């Protein structure tokens, strides 16, 4: 197959971000959180956004989720412009955002209850299955304040996955977890993503994590937030974060990231 064919037959992008800019007007200064960012994510693709703090990664996720709107540029999902939040695009926030007035199971049920055409038993079954996946079955009836930070993140993951969204936006979801749990969840996330063909946009600070999970890794640089480099990760799945190939690619990307940051500091 020629390159031409490949381009012609490319499937329509699941998410399309076209020349998007966004700035926040503060009291003392205006922050250009995103500057002319374009990106397209294919159906079932796993894209990792990598970059230092404050470069606009969360802002981009909020735009994709439809929670905020760009100053200029255009975003679409499935070819439809994004005009507000939609159940097909679930977000796992940087802070867990669990509801303290509901117990663990009811938190996971929240999104499921809003999906029509399910019986109560189905919903409960799905919730239980996802609590099992994140290893929290013994805490099904616990209150949120009784959980550790990592356990909260796992509930949030179960809550985001349970309604079976097509797109999953994840904002540093595993930052607060211990290494063991994290590696377990890398496995689970890859499995779920492949089986259900989910499109994932995943924000992280951790280069290895990005290489382990992503089909593609995008490097952001701050002030103004821009995409500066892109890496394709062609390693076979499921990947292990301790794998040598993952480590090698990660150090190559780290070197590049350092170079880019020095450049933008110098300018």
């Amino acid at each position: 197959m020629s390159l031409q064919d490949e381009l012609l037959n490319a499937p329509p992008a699941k998410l399309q971000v076209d020349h998007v800019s966004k700035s926040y007007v503060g009291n003392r200064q205006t922050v250009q959180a995103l500057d002319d960012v374009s990106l397209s994510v294919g159906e079932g693709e796993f894209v990792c956004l990598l970059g230092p703090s404050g470069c606009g990664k969360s802002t981009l996720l909020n735009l994709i989720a439809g929670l905020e709107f760009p100053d200029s540029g255009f975003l679409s999902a499935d070819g439809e412009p994004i005009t507000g939040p939609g159940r097909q695009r679930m977000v796992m926030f940087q802070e867990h955002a669990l509801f303290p007035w509901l117990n663990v199971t009811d938190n996971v049920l929240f999104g499921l209850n809003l999906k029509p055409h399910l019986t109560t038993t189905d919903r409960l079954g799905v919730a239980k299955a996802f609590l099992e996946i994140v290893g929290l079955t013994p805490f099904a009836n616990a209150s949120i304040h009784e959980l550790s930070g990592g356990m909260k993140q796992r509930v949030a993951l179960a809550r985001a996955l349970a309604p079976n969204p097509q797109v999953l936006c994840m904002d540093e979801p595993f930052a607060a977890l211990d290494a063991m749990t994290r590696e377990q969840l890398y496995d689970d996330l890859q499995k779920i993503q492949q089986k259900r063909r989910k499109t994932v946009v995943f924000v992280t600070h951790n280069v290895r994590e990005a290489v382990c999970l992503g089909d593609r890794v995008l490097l952001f640089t701050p002030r103004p937030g821009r995409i500066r480099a892109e890496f394709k990760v062609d390693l076979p799945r499921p990947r292990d974060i301790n794998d040598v190939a993952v480590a090698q690619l990660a150090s190559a990307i780290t070197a590049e990231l350092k170079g880019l940051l020095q450049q933008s500091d110098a300018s």
Partner: protein
Amino acid sequence: MAVQIIQAVAFFAALIGIWEYGSRSLWWNPVLVPSPLDIGKYVIAKTGDGELLSSCWVTMKRLMLGYIVGIALGIPLGLLTARFKFANNTLGVIALGLQTLPSVCWVPLSLLWFGQSEKAMLFIVVMGTLWAVLLATDHGIRQIPPIYRRAASTMGSSGFHLLWHVLLPASLPHLVSGTKQGWAFAWRSLMAAEIYVTVLTGYGLGHLLHYGRELHAMDQVAAVMLVILLIGFAADKAIFTPWERFLRRRWGLSV
């Protein structure tokens, strides 16, 4: 726990003992300060002939009605002021102002408007409850971390579902403390109203207090004060303790 109970019982037993002893030894004028035994006798006699119980009933009916009306108005109006700037700039300012007004101050106006009637009572209790509940609701909604609303909306919640399943429960700690404050205000204002407003449709505890003073029946005055104190205490426990326990269990708050 057991130690605390024993301490409390011992303390009150000693207090009542000294009081009774003081009354018998004429440390003070028994007409002005009745002895615990006299107060107990009054309570037993008046409970026996039903007067005390029927007064309690009349008072509780008024209190509940006014309180429920106050909450039923206060919560929706608080939602309005939290949601709409216009409501906040108008109704919100009125609420802030009127909340500082002690509810006894409504008595003269209420008497002029409604005369010596149940309506006057109701009005006074509602005014006592409404503003505190309104302001607590308003404040409760405003302090909700925006992330809850965002998380809910990405899961497909909006409109009434968002209000019922997210906004109201998220402001529950404030709603509980607001309705509790409203209860305290309602109770105080009703007592003031009953002492001032003589209505023929039923003698409440406040009236018993008032007539006790007119008749110089100090055992009656002290006994009714005791009953009022106990009712306030019991209602507080019965209505608010379950909510506060729920908040503590779920939120992990100490309220």
